[in-house]
Protein backbone atom coordinates (compact mmCIF):
# COMPACT_ATOMS: atom_id res chain seq x y z
CA UNK A 1 0.00 0.00 0.00
CA UNK A 2 2.98 2.33 -0.34
CA UNK A 3 2.01 3.23 -3.85
CA UNK A 4 -0.83 5.77 -3.49
CA UNK A 5 -2.34 4.61 -6.78
CA UNK A 6 -3.17 1.32 -5.09
CA UNK A 7 -5.80 3.23 -3.16
CA UNK A 8 -7.61 3.58 -6.47
CA UNK A 9 -7.32 -0.10 -7.51
CA UNK A 10 -10.45 -1.50 -9.12
CA UNK A 11 -12.47 -3.90 -6.96
CA UNK A 12 -12.99 -7.45 -8.21
CA UNK A 13 -16.69 -8.14 -8.25
CA UNK A 14 -19.15 -10.92 -9.04
CA UNK A 15 -22.96 -10.85 -8.98
CA UNK A 16 -22.66 -12.08 -5.38
CA UNK A 17 -22.40 -8.39 -4.45
CA UNK A 18 -26.19 -8.45 -4.57
CA UNK A 19 -26.39 -10.89 -1.66
CA UNK A 20 -24.98 -8.21 0.65
CA UNK A 21 -27.53 -5.76 -0.69
CA UNK A 22 -30.28 -8.37 -0.21
CA UNK A 23 -29.21 -8.94 3.39
CA UNK A 24 -29.62 -5.25 4.18
CA UNK A 25 -32.87 -5.06 2.25
CA UNK A 26 -34.27 -7.96 4.29
CA UNK A 27 -33.49 -6.14 7.53
CA UNK A 28 -34.99 -2.94 6.12
CA UNK A 29 -38.20 -4.64 5.02
CA UNK A 30 -38.54 -6.27 8.44
CA UNK A 31 -38.69 -2.82 10.05
CA UNK A 32 -40.34 -0.97 7.17
CA UNK A 33 -42.79 1.01 9.28
CA UNK A 34 -40.06 2.96 11.06
CA UNK A 35 -38.03 3.26 7.88
CA UNK A 36 -40.71 4.80 5.71
CA UNK A 37 -41.92 7.39 8.17
CA UNK A 38 -38.99 9.86 8.33
CA UNK A 39 -38.68 10.53 4.59
CA UNK A 40 -42.45 11.01 4.47
CA UNK A 41 -42.70 13.38 7.44
CA UNK A 42 -39.48 15.33 7.02
CA UNK A 43 -40.37 17.25 3.85
CA UNK A 44 -43.78 18.11 5.28
CA UNK A 45 -42.29 19.56 8.48
CA UNK A 46 -39.55 21.48 6.69
CA UNK A 47 -41.86 22.83 4.01
CA UNK A 48 -44.41 23.97 6.57
CA UNK A 49 -41.90 25.68 8.87
CA UNK A 50 -39.26 26.97 6.48
CA UNK A 51 -41.02 27.00 3.14
CA UNK A 52 -44.35 28.46 4.18
CA UNK A 53 -43.37 29.90 7.59
CA UNK A 54 -40.09 31.69 6.95
CA UNK A 55 -41.07 31.82 3.28
CA UNK A 56 -43.99 34.14 4.03
CA UNK A 57 -41.45 36.92 4.63
CA UNK A 58 -39.72 36.17 1.32
CA UNK A 59 -41.81 37.26 -1.63
CA UNK A 60 -39.52 35.66 -4.17
CA UNK A 61 -36.06 34.12 -4.42
CA UNK A 62 -34.24 33.56 -7.73
CA UNK A 63 -37.58 34.04 -9.47
CA UNK A 64 -39.54 31.36 -7.54
CA UNK A 65 -41.33 31.01 -4.19
CA UNK A 66 -39.22 30.14 -1.16
CA UNK A 67 -40.95 26.74 -0.83
CA UNK A 68 -40.08 25.96 -4.44
CA UNK A 69 -36.54 27.11 -3.81
CA UNK A 70 -35.89 24.85 -0.83
CA UNK A 71 -37.87 21.78 -2.00
CA UNK A 72 -34.94 20.46 -4.12
CA UNK A 73 -32.58 21.18 -1.22
CA UNK A 74 -34.74 19.04 1.07
CA UNK A 75 -34.51 16.16 -1.40
CA UNK A 76 -30.73 16.64 -1.72
CA UNK A 77 -30.23 16.71 2.04
CA UNK A 78 -32.30 13.56 2.46
CA UNK A 79 -30.15 11.83 -0.18
CA UNK A 80 -27.00 12.98 1.59
CA UNK A 81 -28.18 11.81 4.99
CA UNK A 82 -29.46 8.46 3.75
CA UNK A 83 -26.25 7.55 1.94
CA UNK A 84 -23.83 9.00 4.45
CA UNK A 85 -25.40 7.68 7.64
CA UNK A 86 -26.11 4.23 6.21
CA UNK A 87 -22.43 3.76 5.39
CA UNK A 88 -21.03 5.37 8.56
CA UNK A 89 -22.88 4.47 11.76
CA UNK A 90 -24.93 1.61 10.35
CA UNK A 91 -22.03 0.07 8.45
CA UNK A 92 -19.70 0.54 11.41
CA UNK A 93 -22.14 -1.33 13.66
CA UNK A 94 -22.34 -4.17 11.16
CA UNK A 95 -18.57 -4.26 10.72
CA UNK A 96 -17.39 -3.83 14.30
CA UNK A 97 -20.17 -4.77 16.72
CA UNK A 98 -22.16 -7.36 14.80
CA UNK A 99 -19.16 -8.86 12.94
CA UNK A 100 -21.45 -9.22 9.95
CA UNK A 101 -18.56 -8.68 7.53
CA UNK A 102 -16.54 -11.44 9.18
CA UNK A 103 -19.48 -13.80 8.81
CA UNK A 104 -19.92 -12.91 5.14
CA UNK A 105 -16.28 -13.22 4.10
CA UNK A 106 -16.23 -16.78 5.44
CA UNK A 107 -18.42 -17.55 2.39
CA UNK A 108 -17.36 -17.21 -1.27
CA UNK A 109 -17.88 -13.44 -1.06
CA UNK A 110 -14.81 -11.21 -0.98
CA UNK A 111 -14.32 -8.12 1.14
CA UNK A 112 -14.55 -6.04 -2.07
CA UNK A 113 -18.01 -7.41 -2.64
CA UNK A 114 -19.10 -6.74 0.93
CA UNK A 115 -18.05 -3.09 0.72
CA UNK A 116 -19.59 -2.51 -2.69
CA UNK A 117 -22.80 -4.22 -1.55
CA UNK A 118 -22.93 -1.88 1.43
CA UNK A 119 -22.42 1.19 -0.75
CA UNK A 120 -25.08 0.01 -3.19
CA UNK A 121 -27.43 -0.35 -0.26
CA UNK A 122 -26.62 3.18 0.95
CA UNK A 123 -27.46 4.44 -2.54
CA UNK A 124 -30.69 2.46 -2.43
CA UNK A 125 -31.69 4.10 0.85
CA UNK A 126 -31.23 7.50 -0.81
CA UNK A 127 -33.30 6.29 -3.75
CA UNK A 128 -36.11 5.01 -1.50
CA UNK A 129 -36.22 8.29 0.46
CA UNK A 130 -36.52 10.25 -2.77
CA UNK A 131 -39.30 8.05 -4.12
CA UNK A 132 -41.25 8.68 -0.92
CA UNK A 133 -40.56 12.43 -0.79
CA UNK A 134 -41.38 13.38 -4.36
CA UNK A 135 -45.13 12.69 -4.26
CA UNK A 136 -45.39 14.65 -1.00
CA UNK A 137 -43.58 17.61 -2.51
CA UNK A 138 -45.68 17.31 -5.63
CA UNK A 139 -48.86 17.63 -3.57
CA UNK A 140 -47.46 20.88 -2.15
CA UNK A 141 -47.15 22.08 -5.72
CA UNK A 142 -43.44 22.80 -5.59
CA UNK A 143 -42.26 20.43 -8.35
CA UNK A 144 -42.15 20.87 -12.10
CA UNK A 145 -43.17 17.79 -14.10
CA UNK A 146 -41.96 15.83 -15.98
CA UNK A 147 -38.39 17.01 -15.29
CA UNK A 148 -38.71 16.22 -11.59
CA UNK A 149 -39.05 12.52 -12.44
CA UNK A 150 -35.37 12.48 -13.42
CA UNK A 151 -34.56 13.19 -9.78
CA UNK A 152 -35.40 9.54 -9.03
CA UNK A 153 -32.55 7.87 -10.97
CA UNK A 154 -30.25 10.74 -10.07
CA UNK A 155 -30.97 10.10 -6.36
CA UNK A 156 -29.39 6.67 -6.66
CA UNK A 157 -26.18 8.07 -8.17
CA UNK A 158 -25.93 10.93 -5.67
CA UNK A 159 -26.68 8.48 -2.87
CA UNK A 160 -23.87 6.28 -4.18
CA UNK A 161 -21.47 9.22 -3.81
CA UNK A 162 -22.53 10.04 -0.24
CA UNK A 163 -22.46 6.35 0.71
CA UNK A 164 -18.89 6.13 -0.65
CA UNK A 165 -17.91 9.24 1.29
CA UNK A 166 -19.37 7.70 4.43
CA UNK A 167 -17.51 4.45 3.81
CA UNK A 168 -14.20 6.34 3.60
CA UNK A 169 -14.78 7.75 7.08
CA UNK A 170 -15.85 4.33 8.37
CA UNK A 171 -12.58 2.93 7.05
CA UNK A 172 -10.54 5.53 8.92
CA UNK A 173 -12.44 6.09 12.17
CA UNK A 174 -10.84 4.63 15.29
CA UNK A 175 -14.24 4.08 16.95
CA UNK A 176 -17.92 4.83 16.55
CA UNK A 177 -17.70 8.08 18.59
CA UNK A 178 -15.19 9.67 16.24
CA UNK A 179 -17.73 9.34 13.44
CA UNK A 180 -19.29 12.43 15.04
CA UNK A 181 -16.38 14.47 13.66
CA UNK A 182 -17.19 14.15 9.96
CA UNK A 183 -20.85 14.61 10.88
CA UNK A 184 -20.29 17.97 12.57
CA UNK A 185 -17.35 19.23 10.53
CA UNK A 186 -18.48 18.11 7.10
CA UNK A 187 -22.14 17.11 6.90
CA UNK A 188 -23.62 19.92 9.03
CA UNK A 189 -21.76 22.80 7.29
CA UNK A 190 -22.65 21.22 3.97
CA UNK A 191 -26.31 21.06 5.02
CA UNK A 192 -26.27 24.84 5.62
CA UNK A 193 -23.83 26.27 3.07
CA UNK A 194 -24.36 24.41 -0.19
CA UNK A 195 -26.91 26.75 -1.73
CA UNK A 196 -29.55 24.84 0.18
CA UNK A 197 -31.58 27.51 1.99
CA UNK A 198 -30.12 30.65 0.38
CA UNK A 199 -28.12 31.26 -2.81
CA UNK A 200 -24.37 30.70 -2.66
CA UNK A 201 -23.88 34.19 -4.10
CA UNK A 202 -24.70 35.71 -0.70
CA UNK A 203 -21.49 34.19 0.68
CA UNK A 204 -18.05 35.84 0.42
CA UNK A 205 -16.36 34.98 -2.87
CA UNK A 206 -13.73 32.62 -1.42
CA UNK A 207 -16.38 30.69 0.54
CA UNK A 208 -18.34 30.31 -2.68
CA UNK A 209 -15.25 28.89 -4.36
CA UNK A 210 -14.73 26.50 -1.48
CA UNK A 211 -18.34 25.33 -1.62
CA UNK A 212 -18.13 24.70 -5.35
CA UNK A 213 -14.72 23.04 -5.17
CA UNK A 214 -15.23 20.83 -2.12
CA UNK A 215 -18.86 20.33 -1.16
CA UNK A 216 -20.63 17.60 -3.10
CA UNK A 217 -24.01 18.75 -1.84
CA UNK A 218 -23.57 22.04 -3.74
CA UNK A 219 -23.55 20.11 -6.98
CA UNK A 220 -26.33 17.73 -6.01
CA UNK A 221 -28.53 20.72 -5.12
CA UNK A 222 -27.64 22.39 -8.43
CA UNK A 223 -28.70 19.32 -10.42
CA UNK A 224 -31.87 18.61 -8.47
CA UNK A 225 -32.95 22.26 -8.41
CA UNK A 226 -32.49 22.44 -12.17
CA UNK A 227 -34.81 19.45 -12.48
CA UNK A 228 -37.52 20.41 -9.98
CA UNK A 229 -37.74 23.97 -11.31
CA UNK A 230 -37.44 22.81 -14.90
CA UNK A 231 -34.79 25.49 -15.58
CA UNK A 232 -31.14 24.44 -15.91
CA UNK A 233 -28.68 26.34 -13.77
CA UNK A 234 -25.62 27.75 -15.58
CA UNK A 235 -23.53 25.61 -13.23
CA UNK A 236 -25.32 22.39 -14.32
CA UNK A 237 -22.76 20.96 -16.80
CA UNK A 238 -19.89 21.65 -14.42
CA UNK A 239 -21.79 20.06 -11.54
CA UNK A 240 -22.46 16.90 -13.54
CA UNK A 241 -18.78 16.54 -14.46
CA UNK A 242 -17.70 17.29 -10.88
CA UNK A 243 -20.07 14.66 -9.49
CA UNK A 244 -19.00 12.02 -12.00
CA UNK A 245 -15.30 12.45 -11.27
CA UNK A 246 -15.83 12.65 -7.51
CA UNK A 247 -18.05 9.56 -7.44
CA UNK A 248 -15.51 7.40 -9.27
CA UNK A 249 -12.58 8.57 -7.14
CA UNK A 250 -14.31 8.42 -3.78
CA UNK A 251 -15.86 5.03 -4.54
CA UNK A 252 -12.48 3.47 -5.37
CA UNK A 253 -10.94 5.15 -2.35
CA UNK A 254 -13.69 3.79 -0.08
CA UNK A 255 -13.20 0.19 -1.24
CA UNK A 256 -9.42 0.30 -0.89
CA UNK A 257 -9.38 2.11 2.45
CA UNK A 258 -11.77 -0.49 3.82
CA UNK A 259 -9.56 -3.29 2.47
CA UNK A 260 -6.59 -1.71 4.16
CA UNK A 261 -8.51 -1.72 7.41
CA UNK A 262 -9.98 -5.22 7.17
CA UNK A 263 -7.51 -7.39 5.26
CA UNK A 264 -4.87 -8.10 7.87
Amino acid sequence: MNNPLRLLALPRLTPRVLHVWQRNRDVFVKTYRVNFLPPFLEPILYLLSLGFGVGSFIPEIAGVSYAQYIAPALVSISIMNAGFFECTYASYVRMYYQKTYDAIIATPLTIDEVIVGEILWGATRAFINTVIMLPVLFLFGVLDLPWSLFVIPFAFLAGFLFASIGMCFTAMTPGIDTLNLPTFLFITPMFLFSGTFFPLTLLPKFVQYLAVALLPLTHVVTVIRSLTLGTPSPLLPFSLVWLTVATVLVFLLAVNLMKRRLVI
Partner: protein
Amino acid sequence: MAPVIEATGLTKRFGDLVAVDHVTFRVEQGEVFGFLGPNGAGKTTTMRMIQCVSPKTEGSLQVFGMEVEGHESEIKRQIGVVPQENNLDPDFTVYKNLLVYARYFDIPLPEAEATIQELLTFVELSEKRDTPIEKLSGGMKRRLILARALINRPRLLILDEPTVGLDPQARHLIWERLREIRNRGNTIVLTTHYLEEAERLCDRLVIMDRGGILVEGPPRELVKRHAGTHVVEADDTPQVRACLDRLGARYEPMGELLQAYTDTPRDVTRALVGECQMGHVAARPATLEDVFLRLTGRKLRE
Protein backbone atom coordinates in the same frame (compact mmCIF):
# COMPACT_ATOMS: atom_id res chain seq x y z
CA MET B 1 -4.98 -39.09 -1.66
CA ALA B 2 -3.81 -35.48 -1.72
CA PRO B 3 -3.85 -33.78 1.69
CA VAL B 4 -6.72 -31.39 2.44
CA ILE B 5 -4.33 -28.77 3.79
CA GLU B 6 -0.62 -28.58 3.15
CA ALA B 7 1.43 -25.76 4.66
CA THR B 8 5.14 -25.42 4.04
CA GLY B 9 7.18 -22.73 5.77
CA LEU B 10 3.96 -20.78 6.29
CA THR B 11 4.68 -17.38 7.84
CA LYS B 12 2.60 -14.40 8.88
CA ARG B 13 4.09 -11.14 10.06
CA PHE B 14 2.26 -8.09 11.44
CA GLY B 15 4.90 -5.40 11.17
CA ASP B 16 7.73 -6.60 13.42
CA LEU B 17 5.62 -9.25 15.12
CA VAL B 18 5.98 -12.76 13.70
CA ALA B 19 2.61 -14.32 14.48
CA VAL B 20 3.24 -17.55 12.57
CA ASP B 21 6.84 -18.51 12.00
CA HIS B 22 7.63 -20.97 9.20
CA VAL B 23 5.19 -23.70 10.17
CA THR B 24 4.86 -26.89 8.16
CA PHE B 25 1.99 -29.34 8.56
CA ARG B 26 -0.40 -31.54 6.58
CA VAL B 27 -4.01 -32.35 7.27
CA GLU B 28 -5.29 -35.53 5.61
CA GLN B 29 -8.75 -36.24 4.27
CA GLY B 30 -11.16 -37.44 6.97
CA GLU B 31 -9.17 -36.63 10.09
CA VAL B 32 -9.80 -34.32 13.01
CA PHE B 33 -6.75 -32.14 13.36
CA GLY B 34 -6.22 -29.88 16.36
CA PHE B 35 -4.22 -26.73 16.98
CA LEU B 36 -3.38 -26.24 20.63
CA GLY B 37 -1.39 -23.52 22.27
CA PRO B 38 -1.52 -20.62 24.70
CA ASN B 39 -3.04 -17.28 23.73
CA GLY B 40 -0.94 -15.58 21.08
CA ALA B 41 0.58 -18.85 19.87
CA GLY B 42 -0.56 -18.20 16.30
CA LYS B 43 -3.47 -20.65 16.11
CA THR B 44 -6.18 -18.23 15.08
CA THR B 45 -3.87 -16.51 12.59
CA THR B 46 -3.15 -19.90 11.02
CA MET B 47 -6.89 -20.61 10.84
CA ARG B 48 -7.52 -17.25 9.21
CA MET B 49 -4.95 -17.97 6.53
CA ILE B 50 -6.54 -21.37 5.82
CA GLN B 51 -9.95 -19.64 5.58
CA CYS B 52 -8.50 -17.32 2.91
CA VAL B 53 -9.33 -14.15 4.87
CA SER B 54 -5.81 -13.27 5.97
CA PRO B 55 -3.10 -13.29 3.30
CA LYS B 56 0.11 -15.13 4.17
CA THR B 57 3.41 -13.27 4.30
CA GLU B 58 5.64 -16.12 3.16
CA GLY B 59 5.70 -19.83 2.44
CA SER B 60 3.16 -22.00 0.72
CA LEU B 61 -0.37 -22.91 1.77
CA GLN B 62 -2.55 -25.24 -0.25
CA VAL B 63 -6.13 -26.18 0.51
CA PHE B 64 -7.78 -28.95 -1.56
CA GLY B 65 -4.62 -28.92 -3.67
CA MET B 66 -5.11 -25.23 -4.62
CA GLU B 67 -2.73 -22.46 -3.65
CA VAL B 68 -4.78 -20.20 -1.35
CA GLU B 69 -3.75 -16.99 -3.05
CA GLY B 70 -5.92 -16.53 -6.12
CA HIS B 71 -8.40 -19.34 -5.33
CA GLU B 72 -10.12 -17.75 -2.35
CA SER B 73 -13.71 -18.06 -3.52
CA GLU B 74 -13.30 -21.65 -4.82
CA ILE B 75 -11.78 -22.75 -1.53
CA LYS B 76 -14.26 -20.85 0.62
CA ARG B 77 -17.12 -22.46 -1.30
CA GLN B 78 -16.04 -25.83 0.14
CA ILE B 79 -15.25 -24.93 3.72
CA GLY B 80 -17.42 -24.22 6.74
CA VAL B 81 -16.24 -21.91 9.50
CA VAL B 82 -17.20 -21.76 13.18
CA PRO B 83 -15.52 -18.56 14.37
CA GLN B 84 -14.30 -17.88 17.87
CA GLU B 85 -16.70 -14.98 18.36
CA ASN B 86 -20.41 -15.43 17.72
CA ASN B 87 -21.27 -13.46 14.61
CA LEU B 88 -24.83 -14.51 13.98
CA ASP B 89 -26.99 -11.86 12.41
CA PRO B 90 -28.88 -10.25 15.32
CA ASP B 91 -31.43 -8.76 12.94
CA PHE B 92 -32.82 -12.17 11.97
CA THR B 93 -34.42 -15.27 13.44
CA VAL B 94 -32.71 -18.65 13.61
CA TYR B 95 -34.23 -19.75 10.32
CA LYS B 96 -33.56 -16.50 8.50
CA ASN B 97 -29.93 -16.54 9.63
CA LEU B 98 -29.44 -19.82 7.83
CA LEU B 99 -31.45 -18.73 4.81
CA VAL B 100 -29.44 -15.52 4.35
CA TYR B 101 -26.22 -17.47 4.80
CA ALA B 102 -27.27 -20.04 2.19
CA ARG B 103 -27.76 -17.15 -0.23
CA TYR B 104 -24.11 -16.12 0.13
CA PHE B 105 -23.26 -19.56 -1.25
CA ASP B 106 -25.73 -19.19 -4.14
CA ILE B 107 -27.65 -22.22 -2.89
CA PRO B 108 -31.05 -22.32 -4.66
CA LEU B 109 -33.98 -21.62 -2.35
CA PRO B 110 -35.71 -25.06 -2.36
CA GLU B 111 -32.40 -26.79 -1.68
CA ALA B 112 -31.55 -24.28 1.05
CA GLU B 113 -34.92 -24.82 2.74
CA ALA B 114 -34.46 -28.59 2.77
CA THR B 115 -30.91 -28.32 4.09
CA ILE B 116 -31.95 -25.91 6.83
CA GLN B 117 -34.68 -28.29 7.99
CA GLU B 118 -32.16 -31.09 8.17
CA LEU B 119 -29.49 -29.01 9.93
CA LEU B 120 -31.89 -27.64 12.55
CA THR B 121 -32.77 -31.21 13.44
CA PHE B 122 -29.09 -32.14 13.49
CA VAL B 123 -28.24 -29.44 16.06
CA GLU B 124 -31.57 -29.86 17.91
CA LEU B 125 -32.90 -26.39 17.22
CA SER B 126 -36.00 -27.23 15.18
CA GLU B 127 -38.24 -25.77 17.86
CA LYS B 128 -36.30 -22.50 17.88
CA ARG B 129 -36.78 -21.96 14.17
CA ASP B 130 -38.55 -18.60 14.52
CA THR B 131 -36.73 -17.37 17.62
CA PRO B 132 -34.72 -14.14 17.37
CA ILE B 133 -31.00 -14.60 18.02
CA GLU B 134 -30.96 -12.58 21.24
CA LYS B 135 -33.36 -15.05 22.85
CA LEU B 136 -30.97 -17.99 22.39
CA SER B 137 -28.70 -19.33 25.13
CA GLY B 138 -24.94 -19.49 24.59
CA GLY B 139 -25.11 -23.18 23.77
CA MET B 140 -27.92 -22.67 21.27
CA LYS B 141 -26.00 -19.90 19.52
CA ARG B 142 -22.98 -22.16 19.23
CA ARG B 143 -25.10 -24.96 17.79
CA LEU B 144 -26.69 -22.56 15.33
CA ILE B 145 -23.24 -21.40 14.23
CA LEU B 146 -22.30 -25.03 13.69
CA ALA B 147 -25.43 -25.52 11.57
CA ARG B 148 -24.60 -22.36 9.63
CA ALA B 149 -21.08 -23.65 8.96
CA LEU B 150 -22.58 -26.82 7.45
CA ILE B 151 -25.06 -25.06 5.15
CA ASN B 152 -22.81 -25.54 2.08
CA ARG B 153 -22.02 -29.19 2.96
CA PRO B 154 -18.34 -28.38 3.40
CA ARG B 155 -15.51 -30.84 2.76
CA LEU B 156 -13.52 -29.09 5.44
CA LEU B 157 -14.94 -27.71 8.67
CA ILE B 158 -12.83 -25.19 10.58
CA LEU B 159 -13.67 -24.48 14.22
CA ASP B 160 -11.98 -21.85 16.35
CA GLU B 161 -12.67 -22.65 20.02
CA PRO B 162 -15.97 -24.39 19.26
CA THR B 163 -17.13 -24.97 22.86
CA VAL B 164 -15.74 -21.95 24.68
CA GLY B 165 -18.00 -20.88 27.56
CA LEU B 166 -20.46 -23.77 27.22
CA ASP B 167 -21.87 -25.98 29.97
CA PRO B 168 -20.92 -29.69 29.91
CA GLN B 169 -24.22 -30.74 28.30
CA ALA B 170 -23.88 -28.32 25.43
CA ARG B 171 -20.22 -29.21 25.01
CA HIS B 172 -20.93 -32.93 24.81
CA LEU B 173 -23.63 -32.36 22.21
CA ILE B 174 -21.19 -30.42 20.03
CA TRP B 175 -18.54 -33.13 20.41
CA GLU B 176 -21.03 -35.80 19.44
CA ARG B 177 -22.04 -33.87 16.35
CA LEU B 178 -18.45 -33.27 15.34
CA ARG B 179 -17.77 -37.01 15.55
CA GLU B 180 -20.77 -37.65 13.31
CA ILE B 181 -19.47 -35.15 10.80
CA ARG B 182 -16.06 -36.82 10.87
CA ASN B 183 -17.64 -40.25 10.45
CA ARG B 184 -19.20 -39.07 7.19
CA GLY B 185 -15.69 -38.62 5.85
CA ASN B 186 -15.36 -34.86 6.30
CA THR B 187 -12.19 -33.23 7.54
CA ILE B 188 -12.22 -31.12 10.68
CA VAL B 189 -9.63 -28.63 11.85
CA LEU B 190 -10.08 -27.04 15.25
CA THR B 191 -8.31 -24.90 17.81
CA THR B 192 -9.04 -25.30 21.46
CA HIS B 193 -7.90 -24.41 24.94
CA TYR B 194 -9.72 -27.38 26.39
CA LEU B 195 -7.20 -30.16 26.42
CA GLU B 196 -9.82 -32.72 27.25
CA GLU B 197 -11.63 -31.67 24.10
CA ALA B 198 -8.50 -32.14 22.05
CA GLU B 199 -7.78 -35.50 23.65
CA ARG B 200 -11.29 -36.76 22.93
CA LEU B 201 -11.76 -35.40 19.45
CA CYS B 202 -8.47 -35.11 17.63
CA ASP B 203 -6.87 -37.84 15.59
CA ARG B 204 -3.76 -35.72 15.40
CA LEU B 205 -2.76 -32.38 16.79
CA VAL B 206 0.03 -29.86 17.02
CA ILE B 207 0.97 -27.77 20.01
CA MET B 208 1.99 -24.27 18.97
CA ASP B 209 3.81 -21.60 20.92
CA ARG B 210 5.25 -18.25 19.86
CA GLY B 211 4.28 -18.82 16.23
CA GLY B 212 5.97 -22.19 15.88
CA ILE B 213 4.91 -25.84 16.14
CA LEU B 214 6.48 -27.56 19.16
CA VAL B 215 5.21 -31.10 18.69
CA GLU B 216 2.88 -33.00 16.40
CA GLY B 217 1.18 -36.37 16.66
CA PRO B 218 -1.83 -38.32 17.94
CA PRO B 219 -2.77 -37.14 21.46
CA ARG B 220 -2.06 -40.48 23.16
CA GLU B 221 1.34 -40.76 21.56
CA LEU B 222 2.23 -37.21 22.57
CA VAL B 223 1.29 -37.93 26.17
CA LYS B 224 3.36 -41.10 26.18
CA ARG B 225 6.33 -39.44 24.52
CA HIS B 226 6.40 -36.27 26.63
CA ALA B 227 4.82 -37.20 29.97
CA GLY B 228 4.93 -40.99 30.25
CA THR B 229 1.84 -42.89 31.25
CA HIS B 230 1.54 -41.42 34.73
CA VAL B 231 2.31 -38.40 36.82
CA VAL B 232 3.31 -38.68 40.48
CA GLU B 233 2.90 -35.49 42.47
CA ALA B 234 4.63 -34.76 45.79
CA ASP B 235 5.52 -31.68 47.84
CA ASP B 236 8.51 -29.76 46.56
CA THR B 237 11.12 -30.37 49.30
CA PRO B 238 14.86 -31.12 49.09
CA GLN B 239 14.20 -34.63 50.45
CA VAL B 240 11.73 -35.44 47.70
CA ARG B 241 14.10 -34.06 45.08
CA ALA B 242 16.91 -36.19 46.46
CA CYS B 243 14.66 -39.23 46.51
CA LEU B 244 13.51 -38.74 42.93
CA ASP B 245 17.10 -38.14 41.82
CA ARG B 246 18.09 -41.44 43.39
CA LEU B 247 15.26 -43.17 41.48
CA GLY B 248 16.41 -41.53 38.28
CA ALA B 249 12.89 -40.14 37.66
CA ARG B 250 12.21 -37.19 35.31
CA TYR B 251 10.52 -34.46 37.32
CA GLU B 252 9.66 -30.79 37.18
CA PRO B 253 8.49 -28.25 39.72
CA MET B 254 4.90 -27.15 39.10
CA GLY B 255 3.97 -24.50 41.62
CA GLU B 256 4.38 -25.93 45.10
CA LEU B 257 4.48 -29.48 43.80
CA LEU B 258 7.00 -31.65 42.05
CA GLN B 259 5.66 -33.70 39.18
CA ALA B 260 7.47 -36.86 38.19
CA TYR B 261 6.69 -38.30 34.75
CA THR B 262 6.91 -42.07 34.77
CA ASP B 263 5.68 -45.29 33.22
CA THR B 264 6.02 -47.05 36.60
CA PRO B 265 3.93 -44.97 39.03
CA ARG B 266 3.75 -47.77 41.60
CA ASP B 267 7.49 -47.96 42.07
CA VAL B 268 7.89 -44.23 42.33
CA THR B 269 4.99 -43.88 44.76
CA ARG B 270 6.20 -46.78 46.89
CA ALA B 271 9.69 -45.34 47.03
CA LEU B 272 8.42 -41.87 47.99
CA VAL B 273 6.05 -43.15 50.68
CA GLY B 274 8.25 -45.96 51.98
CA GLU B 275 11.89 -44.96 51.74
CA CYS B 276 11.53 -41.20 51.81
CA GLN B 277 8.57 -41.12 54.20
CA MET B 278 6.75 -38.40 52.39
CA GLY B 279 3.31 -37.29 53.48
CA HIS B 280 1.48 -36.10 50.40
CA VAL B 281 1.95 -38.26 47.32
CA ALA B 282 -0.56 -38.72 44.52
CA ALA B 283 -0.36 -40.70 41.30
CA ARG B 284 -2.65 -40.20 38.32
CA PRO B 285 -2.67 -41.00 34.60
CA ALA B 286 -0.79 -38.44 32.50
CA THR B 287 -2.92 -36.19 30.32
CA LEU B 288 -2.43 -33.86 27.42
CA GLU B 289 -2.53 -31.02 29.91
CA ASP B 290 0.74 -32.29 31.42
CA VAL B 291 2.34 -32.29 27.98
CA PHE B 292 0.93 -28.85 27.26
CA LEU B 293 2.19 -27.29 30.47
CA ARG B 294 5.57 -28.99 30.21
CA LEU B 295 6.10 -27.69 26.71
CA THR B 296 4.65 -24.21 26.99
CA GLY B 297 5.44 -23.47 30.64
CA ARG B 298 3.25 -22.17 33.42
CA LYS B 299 3.73 -18.49 32.83
CA LEU B 300 0.46 -16.65 32.14
CA ARG B 301 -0.08 -15.48 28.57
CA GLU B 302 -1.97 -12.30 27.93
